[in-house]
């Protein structure tokens, strides 16, 4: 077997190709189904507010979509593990758990690409083209963190049903309750520290900042970045050290 430092990269791309590209090529409708769901809340908020909350709705929908794709990785991993025994094959091979996780996470991202492109375009439209690097960084930070969390959670699930339930619960905690779809200003002061402890709050605030929405005085872009990076590193460490690759 050739020992090259690029092998993990190749493994990631091949796993994404097998579970994402090949699936989509033979089931193109999957792309349509996955693309529509992130716009449901955006549509409701837009209609109910008469367009007033469009910025919050766009930021919230993008964050919620990324949380969904990250956590959906957990569902896919549980499915592959319990129904197909795919993980058994990968565990007993030269593929590392991190490589497996990143490959499948990339595959999830492919499914969400149309929705992400539309939502990201809306963010740039309401902000500016100069904010694209910041937007890409925000997307990658939250997607990476959520994928690592999804991988960690799924590795401890022995049944597909448990995985779905836990992941739905975490989705509500991360994408619905915190100020992702609404302004931090409506949060009672006593709950603000709690909201700042959630990574998705910062992702939404960063997107709001890009779109020119005033952000809280006690929050800054640097603070948001620092928290997001800290969560990404923490969740990757969690996935790398505490996810059950080999069962015990």
């Amino acid at each position, binding site marked *: *077997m*050739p020992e090259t430092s690029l092998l993990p990269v190749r493994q990631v791309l*091949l796993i994404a190709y*097998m579970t994402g590209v*090949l699936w989509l090529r033979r*089931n193109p409708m999957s792309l349509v189904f996955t693309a529509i769901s992130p716009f449901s809340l955006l549509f409701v908020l837009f209609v109910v507010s008469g367009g007033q909350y469009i910025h919050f709705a766009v930021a919230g929908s993008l964050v919620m979509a990324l949380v969904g794709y990250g956590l959906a990785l957990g569902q896919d991993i549980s499915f592959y593990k319990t129904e197909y025994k*795919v993980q058994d094959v990968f*565990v*007993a091979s*030269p593929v590392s758990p991190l490589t497996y996780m990143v490959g499948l996470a990339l595959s999830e991202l492919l499914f969400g690409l149309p929705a992400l492109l539309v939502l990201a375009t809306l963010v740039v439209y309401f902000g500016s083209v100069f904010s694209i690097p910041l937007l890409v960084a925000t997307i990658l930070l939250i997607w990476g963190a959520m994928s690592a969390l999804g991988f960690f959670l799924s590795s401890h699930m022995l049944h597909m049903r448990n995985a779905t339930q836990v992941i739905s619960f975490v989705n509500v905690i991360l994408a619905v309750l915190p100020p992702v779809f609404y302004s931090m200003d409506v949060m009672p002061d006593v709950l603000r520290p709690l909201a700042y402890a959630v990574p998705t709050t910062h992702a939404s605030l960063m997107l709001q900042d890009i779109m020119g929405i005033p952000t809280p005085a006690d929050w800054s872009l640097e603070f948001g970045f620092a928290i997001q990076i800290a969560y990404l590193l923490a969740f990757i460490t969690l996935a790398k050290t505490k996810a059950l690759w080999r069962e015990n």
Partner: protein
Amino acid sequence: MLAIDAIGVTKVYRSASQPAIKDISLRVEAGKIFTLLGRNGAGKTTFVRMCATQLLPTSGTISVLGYDAVRQAKHVRDLISIVPQEGRPLRALTPWDHVYNWLQIRGDSKSAARDKTEVMLRKLEIYGARDSPAMNLSGGMKQKILVAMAMATDAQLLFLDEPTIGLDPVSRRQVWTAIKDWKSKGGSILLTTHYMDEAEMLSDYIVIIDKGMIIAQGTIQELRKVIPQNIRVDIARDTLDVDTLKSYGSVVDTGAGMLRIFTFESAVRELSDLALRHNLSFTVSSVTLDDVFVYIMGNGIIDDQNARD
């Protein structure tokens, strides 16, 4: 060299009160086909999964190809390949997609992967369906995809956990041929199976486990000696007196109205005369591994006293 050296291995699952594997020690020689036989739930898959670095043992040590399966799992994983029990290929992917991409994931170049994929798909006779998504293939074809993925690799040790389950007799023989080819190239195999003919056809060494413990082991010739007699006579039960049959050897109730008598050549004529007198069907054959297994497990043995000689 040893492919596997397990010493005092015990596995107790968290939710279980009884160990799935109890203090098992065994050595698998490299370049051999080593078979684990046992009833459902005997602990075969648990043992395989521990050796294949998928499951941690509760105690004991397992060395695979010279590396510790717990502390040096990465080295072990570079050298092994598996067919998991009850595995399934991905629905939308074709046999070619599975094998070709899997080989590249394991480090083969595109051209090497292409050549090996073609050889293995042809060997297992799924080349004709190479471009059909797995969801359109039969259960047997799906199983052969998993076998092809494992056997097309350059791994030194192959774990095959019931690899021919669901295959028709012709397909089973194709897999057997592939397994023998693998061994002829110096590869080692740890096989679990429920099919006695498969174990008999392929195994260099067999271990029978029950309730997590080794209850018998040896080559096929050695295991056959577990039954003192060398001939078996299957005879319809009907009105025959079991006590009369016991005088010829060990009698086992095989169900479906049949009795099996383990005996010697010298008793065959008398038994056949007895069956003919009662107008009963009967068959005579040599003792097989299936008989040994049933005999060891004690299933339906009415009497295991030696036959008169």
